[in-house]
């Protein structure tokens, strides 16, 4: 039965990759117009809204957990540092790959290093991507060096790991918030349910919540895939911080909407504006419901329930980012954007590649360290392999 399921998923993954490869080929031989539903009224679609905004946000577990362990000395979180860094690093590399497909002239990307415009949020975003990916690569490198048995290289990186993590916190905070700041320039275009001067802060708060949800979610995934026990005591601690950040996020969100008098836009259940109101409540429900559930000790002590709740938080986060980047712009653009199948295929391909590289790394690199001692553990290679 397991084998049939594994085969099924393998076929699905290959079909997605084939479709994604074809879509990428069309994009680079016939242009963005042929491959996407983008246009002058809708210059940013799924590739920005999902691949970039969500991809970067879900990688936020990386800086949250490393800061907790290396700066705040919360030693008990150490066992999940490496898988979290792996996710974040992988996330950023995939974001850059996706960006290359979306940019009109990707070969000009290096020009952001030479031509500076410090008044542009996109300039800040570009620099944060470059610098934080470098930081993540360095944070990730000891895992590779251990596998290659280069103890001196490991020692060099470990000597600078604390300032590196501190730098990672600053760059990540700037990056996560700047993705929200991108939309500050659209006061007349973005729907009042999502436009707010607090966008950078809201993006930072929700990214931490979603990043932590992702840590729990992927621990559950890899526990299933590699037959390891879930680090439930650690993940419960993580889930409490997730609840805290979700609470602050939702409270800030509603206070802000109330203060700006935009809350009435959430109660339009028919006619124009009802679609936006519906998407708003979907977003709120997908974040508030798991928050309330995980706040109950009995729920978060149950691995299945904790896993499911974190998956819902990730879902709610995706809805939030897609709301800001698409739902909230539909009305002003006069165009109800829905991605083309090629846009969807490229995005799903990015997810499939991410999952598989993660699985590959988990199998062949010392990502899980035993009992807090940072030695390579070989057991992952002999672990029972199930489908992803």
């Amino acid at each position, binding site marked *: 039965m397991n084998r049939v399921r594994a085969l099924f998923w393998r076929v699905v993954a290959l079909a997605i990759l084939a479709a994604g490869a074809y879509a990428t080929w069309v994009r680079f031989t016939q242009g963005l117009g042929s491959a996407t539903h983008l246009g002058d009224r809708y210059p940013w679609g799924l590739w920005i809204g999902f691949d970039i905004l969500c991809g970067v946000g879900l990688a936020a577990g990386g800086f949250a957990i490393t800061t907790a362990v*290396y700066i705040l000395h919360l030693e008990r979180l150490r066992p999940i540092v490496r898988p979290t860094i792996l996710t974040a690093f992988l996330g950023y590399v995939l974001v850059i790959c996706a960006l290359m497909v979306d940019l009109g002239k990707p070969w000009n990307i290096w020009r952001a290093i030479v031509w500076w415009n410090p008044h542009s949020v996109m300039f800040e975003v570009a620099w944060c991507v470059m610098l934080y990916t470098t930081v993540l690569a360095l944070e990730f490198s000891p895992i590779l060096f251990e596998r290659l048995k280069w103890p001196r290289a490991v020692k060099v990186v470990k000597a600078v790991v604390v300032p590196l993590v501190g730098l990672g916190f600053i760059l990540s905070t700037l990056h996560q918030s700047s993705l929200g700041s991108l939309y500050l*320039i659209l006061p007349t275009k973005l729907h009042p349910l999502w436009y707010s001067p607090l966008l950078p802060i809201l993006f930072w708060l929700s990214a931490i919540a979603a990043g932590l949800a992702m840590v729990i979610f992927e621990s559950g995934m890899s526990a299933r895939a590699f037959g390891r026990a879930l680090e439930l005591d650690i993940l419960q601690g993580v889930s409490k911080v997730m609840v805290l950040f979700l609470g602050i996020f939702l409270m800030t969100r509603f206070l802000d909407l109330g203060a700006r008098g935009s809350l009435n836009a959430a109660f339009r259940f028919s006619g124009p504006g009802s679609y936006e109101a519906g998407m708003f409540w979907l977003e709120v429900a997908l974040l508030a419901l798991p928050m309330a559930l995980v706040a109950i000790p009995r729920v978060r002590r149950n691995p299945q329930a904790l896993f499911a709740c974190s998956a819902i938080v990730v879902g709610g986060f995706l809805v939030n980012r897609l709301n800001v980047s698409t739902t909230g712009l539909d009305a002003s653009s006069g165009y109800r954007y829905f991605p083309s199948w090629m846009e969807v295929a490229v995005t799903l391909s990015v997810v499939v590649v991410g999952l598989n590289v993660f699985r590959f790394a988990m199998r062949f690199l010392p990502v899980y360290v035993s009992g807090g001692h940072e030695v390579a553990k070989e057991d992952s290679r002999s672990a029972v392999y199930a489908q992803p």
Partner: protein
Amino acid sequence: MRALLFDNTKCIGCGLCMQACRTQNGLPETDAPDLNDKQFTVLKTTAGKHGEVNYRRLCMHCQEPTCASVCPVGALHKTATGPVLYNAEICLGCRYCIQACPFSVPRYEWNSLVPRVRKCTFCADRLAAGGINACAEACPAGATVAGEREALLREARARLAAEPDKYVPKIYGEHDAGGTSVLMLSSVPFSQLGLPDNLPAEPLSALTFRVLSKIPTFVCAGSFTMAGLWWLTNRKAEVARAEGGGAPRKGGRS
């Protein structure tokens, strides 16, 4: 600073401005109803109190352009004489300018493999050679006139004062989003012309720069806070180790 004044009460809808624009920029004939990558100005009609109103749309050439402020590489810039110009050479194609323009003007070559952002150039070449904008030169009805921005603002104010019943009491572009080099007078509300009537008087770039300008402070304060927290929690762990003779912290390793 050069500017254009377009008064839709004078426009007769002949379309010579569009024709002159095509000739000037080497663009093909088209009957597309809106701006596109091969049409930098367009003549449209809307219903007014006394029949149809003809109006133009084109790049507004903002005093402090939103497009220029959002471009990561500075491929767009405001020139001293008025035109907002684009440098395709260094453009990455992120399309933030298209997203951010409050007037929804810039267009993209969606089907090109080396796509450019396309929009009105304010006939910068003609201006540099001492001429005036091709559309203003072609206009037989005096609906589009070119001149110094201050002079055109005075002219517009005079028209509003002389015939207040004819116009919406506003010079569009005098203050909107920090002011523009294309000024408009209209007999119908500007929102009917696709121009947002709720733009702040300060440039939109102020909205993002308010955040961006805090980065240096944040980096300094953040570094000190990080270092402080590291020292504090490290010290706490050391003290706990010394007092407890190496007893593990809650859930931690010894």
